[in-house]
Structures are given as C-alpha cells and as structure tokens.
C-alpha cells in the first residue's frame, strides 16, 4: 500500500463528516477539535495510527472516534474526562519510556495542554464515518491467532515416512536405495550422474571427510592395491574406528553448539573449563553414542541414571552445552540477564536440534512459523528452573559470576591444570582474608563518608572488588591441600521450579501472564507431561529426542549429508521453518531420517551407508549439460569440489611436514591462562605461540580466534553454524605466502622430501605423493624443473645485489607452493 501524505489523510478524514454526527457537538467543541486536535492527530499520529497507514503500530488507530476510545494493545487511548486513564496523554507527555509519542519529537507544552483540555471536556469527537474502515483495518492488524493445527501442515512438522525405492530407468547405476532416490530425481530433470571417482581421489576424499586428515602415501598405495569388492567399505570402517574421526566430526558438532571458551559479547572473560564439553563431544562421536542419547545428555545429563561416578561426571559435563553460550555479563538487571541467558539457550537448542527459530517468538508470536509467544515462555520456564553454571569471577564489568561444578577426584577426570602445594594454597587463603578485611574497612569508611555528606571513593571499592573476585576464583581452583579441583561447566536443577511470565517485547520490566512449562506445540502433539517436581529438562530432553519428533532425525541426517557433500538436502541447515528452504529431495531426506532411527540413531552407521552409496563415490568433474540444468548441483549429479575446512588445512600442513602431534593435549591453554583480566592478557600471548596438536584443540576465545582458523571461514563461535561460509579472500593468500609458521612447516616438509629421494625427480614425485596423494605427472616434473631454475636465477640475482642467500630455501619454497595450491586446499 502506498503511504499517503498526512495532509491528504487530513482532507480525507474531514470529508467523512456527516451532519448527524456534528449535530451532537456544540460549536465550541467542534471548533476546538477541528482547530486544535484533528490537525495534530493527522500530522503526527496517523502515519502509524490510521487505517490507511502502511503499518499500524501497537494495534492503535486514532482516525476514528470509536477506535480511539477502544485503544490499542495497551488499552484505551482516550477516556473522556479522565486524564490519568487516557493513555494518549501519558504517551504525548512522554511519561513512559516505552511509550513516548510521537516518538521523534515531543509535542510542545501548548499542544499537550490542548489535548488535556480536550480530554477534560469529554473528548468531543465529530468523526465517525471512518469507523467501519477503521474496524476492518483494525481486524486486519489485530493479533492473528496462530492456528497450530493448520501450522502442522508444513512439511517439516509431518512425520518422515520411509519411501519405497523408486523405479529408475538406468537400473544398472544404483548400488543402494540412496542411489535410487537420487537417480530418480536426476532422471526427472534429465540429468545423468557423472563417472565414478578415481580410487585415488576417493580414498583422499574419504580420509579427509572422516578424519580431517590426508591419507599417508602408504595408505593410498594399500587402497589402490586392494582390488576386493569391499575394499572401500573396509577403508571406511577403518577410518570410522580411528580416534581422529571424533576430532573431525566432533568439531562439526561444536560449530552447531557455538562452542567457545569465553563469554563473548561485551565482557569477554574466559571460560576456563569449556574444554570438558569439547572433549565430551569428541568422545561421544568416537564411542558412537547414539544421537538420541547424545541429545538427552546435553540437555539433562545431570538428571539421568548413571553407572558409576565417571559416567555421572561425563553426563554432567555434557550439559555444558547449555552453559557455554555467549553472555552479556555486565547487564545490570539480574532478571534481564536471566532472560538473555535463557534466550540464548532456547535459540541454540531449537536451531541445533530442530532447525527451528523459536527465539523469534520471544517478543511476539513468531511472524512466520506457527509458534506463539506463549510456547517460547513455556520453554523458557524449563530453562529458568535450572541454574546455568559457567564460572568467571566478579570484576568491574562482570556483574554475574557463577559457580562451577566440582566433580571431585573420584570422577577420575583430569583437572586440566597443575596443582600447588599446601603452603601456596594457604597463602592464597591469607590473601583472600586480607582483601576481605580491607574491603570491609573501606566499605565502612565509604558509608561513614557518605553519611557525613562527603564523597566516597567508589573507584577504590571497585578495584578491591575486582581483586577479591580474582583471588576468590584462584582459591576455588584448589583443594585445601593445593590439589587441583575437577571443575566443569554445566546445569543443575533449581530447588523450586518456576513458570515464566510472558515478557512483553522480551523486556524484564514488562512481565505479563504466567504460562506453565511446556513445549513448542506445533512440533509434537503428544508432548511429555512435565512433573511438578523437577525443572522439566528431562522431559525437554525426551521431547527433543523422541522418534515422534518430526524434526530431530531429519535435521541431523541433513547435517550429516551436508558434512559429506558440502550442501544440505535442505540448504538452510538451521531453519526448517516456512522461511527456510524446502528439501530438494524430500523422499531422500525422509529415507535417511527413518534409516537413522531404525539403526538406533547411530551416526557412524548413517555415515557408512551414505559413503557406500554410488552417489558419494561420484567424481567431482564438470558436465556441461548437467551444469546448465542444475548449476549448483543441488540434486547430486556429481560430488561437489569441497574446500578443506580451516582445521583440516592446518592439520594437513602439519601432517605433510611431519610435525603433527596426533595426541590430544590435556585440557586447554585457556584453562591454564588463569582467571579474569589476567587470563585474558595471557591469552593474547598464547594465541600467537605455535601449537602442533590438532586444530580441534586450539583455544576458541570468542572474537579472538587463532588467525589460522579465522582466516579460513571458521564458524562464528557465538552463533549456531550448520553451514560455514566459503570465501576466497586475499588475506588467505597472504597467510599462506608470508606467515612465518607456514614457512617453518614448509622448511620441515622440504627436509622430509629432500631426504626421501636419491635425485630431484624422485624428490619431486615424493613431494606430490605427500601433498596430493598422487605421483607427479610429466607436466608436473617439467613445471617443477622450471620453478627450480627460475628460483635459482632469482637467488643469484639477489646474491649479486648483496642480498640474502635464499638459495637454501628453494625446496622450502617449492613445498610451500604445493601447500598453497588449490589442489591441496580443495577436495576432488
């Protein structure tokens, strides 16, 4: 609708006057309204509060008598004779911070006085003709009731049904049901699958896809030599059994779980014990924890039955999922802080497990999906009934430090940092006591000064508070004898569960009606009943992991597909709602979802089945006819050429240079950096130190990511990320060409390569084997020779100019070039 200029509105409204209406008013009244009130309404209010407005705000219309009397969301705007009850007066006087009208510029005192006079004289209003129009406009803008039953018709809310394998024309091509489902869609669109991948490419692809590392030249050789029919199946089984599998696939999940080791946002203090959750995820993938269990433990591990102390401890660690989110620690209002933490949890868990943007329903009913605001607060109540424990200590800007969970020595877990001796521990105690005494004194002085009307030294008190916080955190790390405590982040049930109010616009100062704890109705008809006793997290865990939940299996199998093919069947990985993308092959998605559940929610079995399909084993070659019909390869007529993720690129460089430390480090450098500001400063030094363990264990401090990760499209550690970006920016080139660590690894690779051969041709071949998993072709040999001769010319030139002797770096420059090339960075 086009927005009418206010003056036109004024004329339009004026012309609707009828004689009958006017007759009821005295001339003075009519005059007053027309001269003092109507022009102001038309000029300053109608833009948002008229039937003709582009967008009616607050459900309020002021262009008819009736609608003004009826009012908007907050109540009647005009109550004749009653100033206090007439919201319009409060609004134009800017008495409420949230209702300052007109919002841009306050009306002059004289105009406000006119409106007050008008209300006092009984709000005479000749308008009437537009009531009908207003009513219909009002109906249009009135809160639309969300129809849940209607909403369930969206594809994602219907249970997946396993389709019968479709008939295909090319009956020789499919190896499995997955292939039939893919091929039938291809044939529908006149697309033909390209050729199968070469064995060499296939083993490289599979090794990177499952472990994030390249195959060794020997592994390639062995695979090529194995001509048995199940050679690939055996290779896949071997890779799935490797401990590197969990490091790679765990890291996939950590993207979704927005894993990081600091609070992010405005006061980015460290989370020294977030790494326990990271290690738990890696182990869960390695041990093949069924996905439904995997969900339950992350939501309610602390409430689940356990075998022994270790089992119990691990399940508590799993709830770190809810605790590691970013937090606005310097929010002053504690209730608002709780709302923010809860919102972050809802946003994360609903996107991660259900690909549903429930958090959109925080301030109002979801605009696009059938999720009323009430459902959001039903869910919020469950999370508010739990306490989120994330550590951090009190500091000037951290108004919300929390405790950590002490798992106790009997858990058998590693503390992740060194202990101290008993006397050192006693010294820490002593310092804490001294600080406490000083603070008590200083606080008393401050009060005395205040009551004497003198100024208090607030800054000194603040500094003391910070020191105390630091000191407390240090003391709390150790047992009395100085042994390190076994600490973790996580979630506990509060003593008394609460139901949440609906907060208007998500604002802590505007609580409304309270709603019982519950779930998002549209997802599941028969949701578990929440017992009066606990928080409801156990029921939430069941609800999320139920077979009847139409989203859970679909969302995860779509993620698995994405991590293997580079693109989801639903391309909006974290949004299956009405504004998300539809599945390009719904039958395939349903098939995978049902198979996933049939196989006991086993991630490894799902991966295996997909990888053994012919679809996965296609080459990544170009095919012009297919390309014209489906340029983005949405239907899988070939394998996508995939960029190595940041972690794999770094790990592969370490790997080919022979420098990779394949063992997981103990805990995290973040844990050992220390607490508070001190720890943060330490981290700046630590981040630039070279590390040789796998990238999955690098410190993930929000907004301070290691360069080697952040440059290559690592996930934003504050957001649920099911689909990483893929960029090609010059800063990546600068890193690979000029970074000292990359050069150092090139030196190491060069040494390895040089020692591996008798002559240069053999060395070149070995270098190609190492970097690309294939021997050098004749062209490669020629290009390499050309490189070396040019390089030596340059080196001689440099020498002649009395420059540095760079001839010693020839092999290093060569190896660095191999690592920097596209063949190293992309998978066929």
């Amino acid at each position, binding site marked *: 609708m086009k927005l009418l200029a206010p003056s036109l509105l004024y004329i339009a409204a004026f012309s609707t006057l009828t004689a009958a209406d006017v007759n009821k008013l005295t001339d003075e009244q009519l005059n007053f309204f027309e001269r003092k009130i109507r022009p102001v309404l038309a000029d300053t209010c109608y833009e948002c509060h008229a039937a003709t407005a582009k967008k009616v705000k607050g459900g309020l219309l002021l262009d008819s008598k009736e609608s003004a009397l009826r009012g908007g969301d907050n109540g009647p705007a005009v109550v004749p004779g009653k100033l206090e009850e007439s919201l319009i007066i409060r609004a134009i006087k800017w008495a409420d911070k949230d209702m300052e009208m007109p919002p841009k510029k306050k009306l002059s005192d004289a105009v406000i006085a006119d409106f007050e006079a008008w209300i006092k004289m009984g709000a005479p209003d000749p308008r009437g003709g537009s009531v009908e129009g207003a009513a219909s406009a009002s109906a249009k803008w009135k809160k639309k009731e969300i129809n849940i039953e209607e909403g369930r018709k969206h594809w994602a809310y219907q249970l997946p049904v396993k389709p019968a394998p479709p008939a295909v024309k090319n009956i020789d091509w499919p190896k499995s049901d997955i292939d039939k489902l893919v091929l039938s869609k291809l044939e529908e669109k006149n697309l033909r699958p390209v050729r199968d991948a070469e064995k060499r490419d296939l083993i490289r692809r599979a090794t990177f896809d499952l472990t994030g590392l390249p195959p060794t030249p020997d592994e390639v050789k062995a695979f090529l030599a194995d001509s048995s029919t199940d050679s690939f199946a055996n290779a896949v089984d071997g890779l799935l059994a490797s401990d590197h599998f969990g490091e790679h696939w765990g890291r996939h999940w950590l993207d979704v779980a927005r894993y990081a080791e600091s609070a992010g946002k405005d006061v980015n203090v460290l989370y020294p014990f977030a790494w326990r959750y990271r290690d738990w995820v890696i182990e869960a993938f390695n041990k093949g924890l069924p996905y439904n269990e995997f969900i339950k433990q992350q939501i309610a591990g602390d409430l689940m039955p356990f075998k022994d102390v270790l089992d119990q401890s691990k399940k508590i660690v799993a709830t770190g999922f809810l605790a590691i989110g970013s937090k606005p620690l310097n929010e002053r209002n504690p209730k608002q802080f709780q709302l923010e933490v809860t919102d972050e949890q809802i946003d994360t868990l609903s996107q991660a497990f259900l690909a549903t943007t429930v958090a959109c329903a925080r301030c109002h009913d979801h605009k696009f999906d059938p999720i009323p605001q009430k459902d959001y607060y039903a869910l919020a109540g469950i999370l508010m009934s739990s306490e989120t424990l994330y550590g951090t200590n009190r500091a000037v800007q951290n108004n919300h430090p929390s405790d950590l969970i002490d798992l106790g020595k009997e858990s058998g877990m590693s503390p992740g940092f060194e202990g101290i001796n008993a006397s050192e521990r006693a010294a820490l105690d002593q310092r804490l006591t001294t600080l406490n005494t000083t603070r008590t004194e200083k606080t008393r002085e401050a009060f005395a000064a205040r009551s004497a009307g003198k100024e208090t030294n607030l800054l000194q008190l603040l500094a003391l508070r910070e020191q105390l916080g630091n000191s407390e955190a240090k003391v709390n790390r150790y047992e009395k004898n100085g042994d390190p405590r076994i600490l973790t982040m996580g979630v506990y049930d509060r003593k008394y569960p609460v139901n949440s109010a609906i907060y208007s616009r998500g604002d802590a100062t505007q609580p409304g009606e309270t709603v019982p704890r519950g779930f998002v109705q549209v997802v599941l008809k028969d949701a578990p009943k929440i017992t009066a006793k606990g928080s409801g997290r156990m029921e939430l865990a069941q609800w999320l992991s139920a077979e009847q939940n139409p989203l859970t299996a679909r969302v995860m199998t779509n993620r698995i597909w994405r991590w293997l093919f580079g693109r989801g069947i639903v391309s909006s990985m974290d949004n299956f709602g009405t504004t998300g993308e539809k599945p390009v092959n719904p039958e395939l998605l349903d098939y995978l979802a049902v198979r996933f559940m049939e196989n006991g929610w086993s991630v490894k079995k799902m991966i295996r089945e997909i990888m053994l399909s012919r679809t996965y084993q296609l080459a990544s070659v170009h095919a012009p006819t297919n390309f014209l019909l489906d340029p983005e390869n949405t239907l899988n007529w070939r394998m996508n050429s995939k960029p190595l993720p940041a972690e794999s690129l770094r790990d592969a460089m370490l790997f080919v240079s022979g420098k990779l430390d394949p063992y997981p480090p103990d805990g995290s450098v973040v844990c050992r950096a220390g607490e508070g500001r001190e720890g943060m400063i330490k981290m700046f030094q630590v981040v630039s130190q070279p590390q040789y363990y796998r990238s999955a264990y690098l410190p993930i401090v929000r907004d301070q990511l290691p360069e080697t990760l952040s440059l290559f499209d690592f996930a*934003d550690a504050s957001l649920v990320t099911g689909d990483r970006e893929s960029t090609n920016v010059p800063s990546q080139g600068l890193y690979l060409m000029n*970074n000292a660590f990359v050069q150092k690894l090139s030196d190491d690779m060069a040494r390895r390569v040089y020692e591996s051969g008798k002559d240069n041709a053999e060395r070149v071949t070995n270098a190609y084997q190492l970097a690309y998993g294939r021997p050098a072709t004749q062209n490669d040999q020629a290009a390499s020779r050309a*490189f070396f001769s040019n*390089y030596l010319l340059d080196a001689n030139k440099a020498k002649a100019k009395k420059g540095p002797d760079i001839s010693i770096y020839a092999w290093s420059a060569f190896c660095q070039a191999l690592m920097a090339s596209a063949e190293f960075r992309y998978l066929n």
Partner: protein
Amino acid sequence: MNPDLGFSRRHFLQSTSSGFGYLAFSALSTWAADEPAISASPLAPKQPHFAPRAKRVIFLCMKGAPSHVDTFDYKPQLIKDNGKDSGRGRGGPALLLASPWKFSQHGRSGLYISELFPEVAKHADDLCLINSMHTDLPNHPQAFVQMHTGTAQFIRPSLGAWALYGLGTQNQNLPGFITMDPPPNNGGARNYGSAFLPAIYQGTKIGSGFPGQFGRRGGGGAEETISNIKNERFTTEAQRTQLDFVQTLNRAKMQQDGYNPQVEGVIESYELAFRMQNIAPQVLDISKETEATKKLYGIGDQTTDAFGKQCLHARRMIEAGVRFVEIAQGNWDQHRNLRADLEKNCNEIDKPIAGLLADLKSRGLLKDTLVIWGGEFGRTPHAQGGDGRDHNNTGFSMWMAGGGVKGGTKIGATDEYGYEAIDNKVHIHDWHATVLALLGLDHEKLTYRYAGRDFRLTDVSGRVVKEMFS
C-alpha cells in the same frame, strides 16, 4: 556488441600482474575509478539506492566516552550553577561541575567550541555538531558495540561491514574496510565484524593496537601493518617465481576440472594478495609525504605524532579507494583526573584532526568524504571525586564534517546542564540511518536475509536526520 569490450578490467589486472608489469601498477592512481571493475567480485562497486553525498567514511572513534560538556556542548547554566548539588550521584552528593575550559564562538556560523579544540575550532564552519545524541546503556562495552553494530544484545554486522556490503569498494587491491588499532575489549572484533554477512565484508585490522589498551592510552600509530603483508624471506622476484608456480599448479587443476569457480577464486585472490603486498605498504608508507603535510598533521611532535600518523594513514587509504576507515583512540574514560587527562587526550588529537580536515579539503576530497568524530556516550555534568565525570548515555555529542553534511550547524540540544538530549533527539539508530543515507543507502532497504528474515543495521528503528544534509 563491441568486441573490444570483451577485454575486461580483470584481464588487464591479470596480465599486468603475471609479468613484471605489476611493479609499475600503482593503486594510487585507481581511486577515481568508480565504474564497476570486477563485476564478479562481491567487493565490486555497487549502485547505491540514491545519489550519494559521501563516497567514503573516516570514523574517528573515541573509546571511553569523551565529555561533551567540556568539548562541544556549551552549557552556560552549568557554569552558573557550579558546585550545586545535582541530586543525581551514585555514592553521596554529586556537585555540578562547570567545565574548567572556556567556550567561545567560532567561524561565521558562531558554533560554540571549547578551548580544548583550538585547531578543530578553525573548521567550525565545516562541522555539523550533534548535541542530542543518546544511546541505550551507560556501560562502555554495550554502548561501544551498539555504536558499531546497532545492538549489544545480539551479534550483528558492523557499520563498516554494512557500508561495504552496500557499496562495494573502489580499489580491488586493498581491503574495503580498514580499522586501525581497534580495542580488543569492548566487544573486540565484533566492532568491525561481519556477523552473518559474508566474511569478505569484515574490517581488516591494521596495527596491533593492543599493548596500549590496558595502559594509559590505546591506539598505536607507529607500526601500522596488515597481518602477513610482508614476506620476510624471499625477494619479490623469488616470491613471484614461487607464486607463478602456484598459479601453474592452479591452472592445471582448473584445466582438469573443466570449470571450477573456486579455483578461479583462488587464482584471483592470490594475485590480489600479491598486489596488496606491494600496494598496501605504499599506502601505509608516509615517508614520501612532504614535511609541510606531516607538520599539518602534527607528525614529529611527541604529543600529536601517533594520532597524526593515523590520520594521515586514513587520508592515504581513502585516497587509494578504501571505502571505510576507522581509527580508534582512547582512553576517554575520565572518572578522575579530568582536568589533566582530558586536556591530554584533546591535545593529542586536535591538531591531527584539523590537519586531516584541511588536507582533505585542499585535495578536493572533503566534499565527498564523511569525517565522523565521537565516542560511545558522554559524561555527567556533575563531578565525580571533584575532578572527574561519570557515564552519561542520555545526552552526548558527536560531530560530522564533509561528505554532504551541512557545515556550521548544530543539531538538537541537551537540557540546561547537559544531562539529557531533549530537542531533536538523535539515537544511535538515527545516526546510523543518517550515515547510510549520506552514502546513498536507504537504511530500510539495506537488508540481508539471515535465519529466515531480513536484517537491517537499524533493526526496526532509525530516522534519517535530514537537517544534517547540506
């Protein structure tokens, strides 16, 4: 079709960079090239929504919240009522504190500016003072992030990233959004991040900036570098030989793949990186600037040297075609030692800023370069500890100059003491909307679809303050 047009600029760039011709290729001559250069690149110049008044931005970001009542918001009543109880303290009585510095009128416009900025005051007729700024919260981290991204509550793209997303950049050999010495705290990289926008729109950080952060003053100026910009090992020729080999490998792969835009992207980005290596240091190298220019910026004088260099770098960057340059300077958080420290801060920046404005003007750049000065909020008219001021988010000042801004103007006002903006209030959202409008972008149309909905810098708010336009 004219076959000559098939020879695109991209080919030109490639051919100049694959031989030794690249050495002669100077970015400094390309800043005027506003026509679409590399259309495939997400950084290629884009058409704004309407005719822009400014083409580029220099944001002088004063971290820590400078006192408005001592600098650009003249409050005679505060002077009169000096020492009276304001009734607003948060730890005992809080007495109104008249500014220890004198204000006087400047230029034909007669704008009031305090004696802390004698040099900037000479440009009064170019300044558009906004005295009615306000922001949501009186805490540094949140307000700082809100100033940069519109909200501290959610993770959102920064102003510079939005500008780059909306307009692309004019020099494909340099980053389009550069931030010099950004503070690592107060939201850190969030303040120049791209959040859900493609990563290519995020700001490129120059300089370490860190060591000073927990010390007295933030900001660097001495060593401005782009990460990994310099190869410490090879000669340029040897590196070119190495890169030629990389590109041979890449082209071989491309040939084998038939068609692979990703590999094409790799090839291009290496050439860009290689050119950047050559050009960025040229842009950052101020040694060839004349002594007169350096003096203009206060370079060489201990007090003004660091910020002067940053300002000169900023000019060189925008001249070379960078779209958005930000310089962070601080710390302005004068809870105490107001008299000494505020004066010190102002002394450090007054001459360099005046120099920047004069230099831009004489080069004809000021008319379409928007220069912004301001911090995350202002300070209380009452004293803290006798010689300090507390946080004040309900009223503070910023100013803008150049780029289609009406010079010699004062927008809005605070109350008689300077506590609250009361007239023509300008919220951070409004300021964002106005900055975008000056760049030719409609803040309601500059959207990006993420998680199923279209996001804007200004969320659901924002008013373009047209009174600021020339």
